[in-house]
C-alpha cells in the first residue's frame, strides 16, 4: 500500500518536450513509472522517450487513460498548466516548477477547492512509492520499500532523512515532497491524513521548516486525528527574521510568526518527538515502530 501513487498510476508529463521534462521522463520510466503520454500544445503527434505526445491533457486522458500528471513547464506558463490538469479529471497533479508567481498560485488554490484532484507542489521534488512509481525528480536509488511514510517541504533534506532511514533498514511506503512555496496544493495535514488512512504506514516522518503555520496546523491535526505515530524535524532554527532562506516560503516574518521554536513546541505538545539532527529523527522512528 501507499498513498497517491502506485504501479497502476498512469502518468502524463506536461512539458515533456523540454530538456528537464524529457530527462526526468526517462528517469521516471527507468524507475518503473507508468508514463503513458506527454502533453505539449502544438506538439501533438510527436513521440518523446517512446511515449505519444498530445496537444492537451484532456486528449491524453481520453486516449491513454492518464490519471496523474507531472508538470515541467516554465514558471510563466506553469499555473495555466496546473489549471489544465485540474480541469482534466485527473486524480493527481505534481508541479515540479519553481518560481511560479504567488498570485497565480492563489488562483490555483481557489480552483483546487472546487475540484477533487490532488495537487502536490509546486516547487517540489515530487513523490515516490519505492519499487512502484516515482512522479518527479527524486533520485530513486536512495529509497527503499517499507512502512514509514515521509512528508517534507524540502527536496534534498528529504533525501538526507531517507538516507538515514534506509541505512537502518527503515523503508518507506511513500515519500512526498510538498514543496517550499508559500502557497502549495497538498499540505502537511493533507499528507498526514492520507498516511493515517494507509494501513501499511506504521510511522510517519514530517520534515518542516521555518515560515507559515503549516507545521502548527499539522501538530493540531496529529493531536486530534492521528493514531499513527509521527516523528518530526524542523529546519531553520538558526535563520534570522526577515531573511528568505532559499525557499520562497522559508521566512520568519518580522512579527515573529513562522519560527522554528513555535513549530517545535507545537509538535512536542502534540507528542511528536522532534530531532535535533536527521540521525536523531531516525532514532525516533525506530523507537516509535
Amino acid at each position, binding site marked *: 500500500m501507499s498513498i497517491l501513487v502506485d504501479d497502476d498510476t498512469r502518468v502524463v508529463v506536461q512539458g515533456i518536450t523540454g530538456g528537464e521534462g524529457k530527462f526526468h521522463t526517462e528517469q521516471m520510466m527507468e524507475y518503473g513509472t507508468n508514463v503513458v503520454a506527454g502533453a505539449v500544445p502544438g506538439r501533438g503527434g510527436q513521440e518523446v522517450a517512446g511515449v505519444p505526445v498530445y496537444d492537451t491533457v484532456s486528449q491524453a486522458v481520453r486516449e491513454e487513460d492518464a490519471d496523474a500528471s507531472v508538470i515541467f513547464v516554465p*514558471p*510563466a506558463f506553469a499555473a495555466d498548466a496546473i489549471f489544465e490538469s485540474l480541469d482534466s479529471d485527473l486524480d493527481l497533479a505534481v508541479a515540479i516548477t519553481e*518560481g*511560479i*508567481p*504567488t*498570485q*497565480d*498560485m*492563489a*488562483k490555483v*488554490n*481557489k*480552483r483546487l477547492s472546487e475540484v477533487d484532484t490532488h495537487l502536490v507542489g509546486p516547487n517540489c*521534488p515530487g513523490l515516490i512509492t519505492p519499487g512502484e512509481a516515482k512522479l518527479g*525528480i*527524486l*533520485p530513486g536509488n*536512495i529509497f527503499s520499500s517499507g512502512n514509514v511514510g515521509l512528508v*517534507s*517541504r*524540502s*527536496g*534534498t*533534506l*528529504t*533525501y*538526507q532523512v531517507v*538516507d538515514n532511514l534506509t541505512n537502518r533498514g527503515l523503508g518507506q511506503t511513500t515519500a512526498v515532497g510538498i514543496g*517550499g512555496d*508559500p*502557497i502549495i496544493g497538498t499540505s502537511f495535514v493533507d499528507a498526514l491524513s492520507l498516511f493515517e488512512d494507509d494501513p501499511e504506514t506504521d510511522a510517519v516522518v514530517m*520534515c518542516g*521548516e*521555518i*515560515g*507559515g*503555520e503549516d507545521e502548527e496546523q499539522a501538530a493540531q491535526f496529529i493531536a486530534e486525528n492521528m493514531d499513527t505515530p509521527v516523528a518530526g*524535524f524542523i*529546519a*531553520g*532554527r*538558526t*535563520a*534570522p527574521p526577515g*531573511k*528568505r*532562506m*532559499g*525557499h*520562497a*516560503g*522559508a521566512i520568519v516574518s*518580522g*512579527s515573529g510568526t513562522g519560527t522554528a521554536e513555535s513549530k517545535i513546541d507545537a509538535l512536542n505538545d502534540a507528542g511528536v518527538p522532534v530531532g*535535533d*539532527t*536527521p*540521525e536523531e529523527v531516525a532514532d525516533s522512528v525506530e523507537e516509535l515502530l
Partner: protein
Amino acid sequence: MKLHEYQAKSVFADAGIPTPDSQLAESTEEVLSAAESIGYPVAVKAQVHVGGRGKAGGIKLVENDEEAREAADAILGMDLKGYTVGRVLVEGAVDFVDELYVGVTMDRGEGKPVAMVSEKGGVDIESVAEEDPEAIAREYIDPAFGLQPYQARRAVYDAGIDREVAGDVSSVLTTLFSLWDDRDASDTEINPLMVTSSGEVVAADAVMNIDEDALFRQPELAEMEEDSYEDDLERKAGEYGFDYVRLDGDVGIIGNGAGLVMTTLDLVDHYGGEPANFLDVGGGAKADRIANALDMVFSDENVESVVFNIFGGITRGDEVAKGINNALEQFDEIPKPVVVRLAGTNAEEGMEILNADLVQVEQTLEEAVQRAVENAQEASQ
C-alpha cells in the same frame, strides 16, 4: 523586490492616490532647493529599505533652510541599520487631524489576499495587530473575484473610519488592491494615510513590494530595481545567482537545496559553531557554479572554516568534485580548511575525483559539520 518610498509613491500617485508634493534629493543643496520649491514645512526622509526609519532618525520635519540644511547633513550619508543613506525624499508636510492605515497583502495561511484598514495608523501596524487585533478590520479577498466594492466599504466602516472620509478611504483601498493585483505585489500599504483638516486623505508614506517571481511580467517595475544589497558579498551572490544570506559566524556553509542548507546551519549551531552564511547552489549545479560558491565563501573575511554538504539528486557528485578541485587548485595554499561530504547521485565517482590533498572528506553530515566546527574553533584560538 522592495520599491523605495519615492518609487512606490509615484506608482500610487499615477493610479490616482493623493500624495504630497515631493522631490528626490541627493545633496544638501538639492534638499534646500526642493524645500524651497515645495514650501516649508517639509519632511526630509531617508530612502533606504529599513523599517522604523523615523525612530532611527531617518526622518526629520523642518521649518526653514537652517533646519533643512541640518537635517540633510545629518541624514545624507548616515548609516541606518546597515544601509548608507544616499538619497532623501523632500516632501511637503501634511496638516493632518488623523492617521489611518490601509494595506493589502497575501495571507499565506488562507492562500488569498487580505485587505486591512485601521484607525490606528502612523504606528507600527504589526504591534497594533498583536496588542489590539480588533483595531484592524480585515477582508479576505477571493483571488478569482478580486476585492469587491462592498468589501472595501465594509472594511472601512468596520474599522470605524469617519463617515465623511469613508468613501475616499474605500476608494484608496480599492486602488491599492488593483495595484497589488495588476503589479504582482506581495504588499501594498499606506501608513499613515493622513486625513487633513479639510477632510481629504493623503498618502504620507507608501510601501510596495513586488513578487520576485513575477518580475518577468512587470518590466516597468523590474527597471526600478536598485542595488539594495547590504554588502558586497550579497551583491556578489546576486550576480552569481545564488540564494545567499550573510550571518555573523565563522563557519562558511555551502550546500544544495534550501532545507538541507538550513539543516547544515542548524547542525553547525548544534555542535557549538556559528554559521557564517546560508548558500544554496540550487539543483543540478555544474563545476563552474561550485567553484563560484567556494569563491563567495572565501571572500567573506569572517570565515575560518568551510563545510560543503551535497546530497545529489539532480546535482551530480562528480561535477561537485570537479568544481571543488578547480577552485582549490588555483591556490598555492588553501585559504581555509574545507570539509566535504558528498552523498546521493554519483557520490562515489565524486569521491574518486576529489583531490584529497586539498580537502577533508567526511562520510556523514554530522561528522562533516563537527569537523568544520572544530576547524573554526582551532583557527580562532
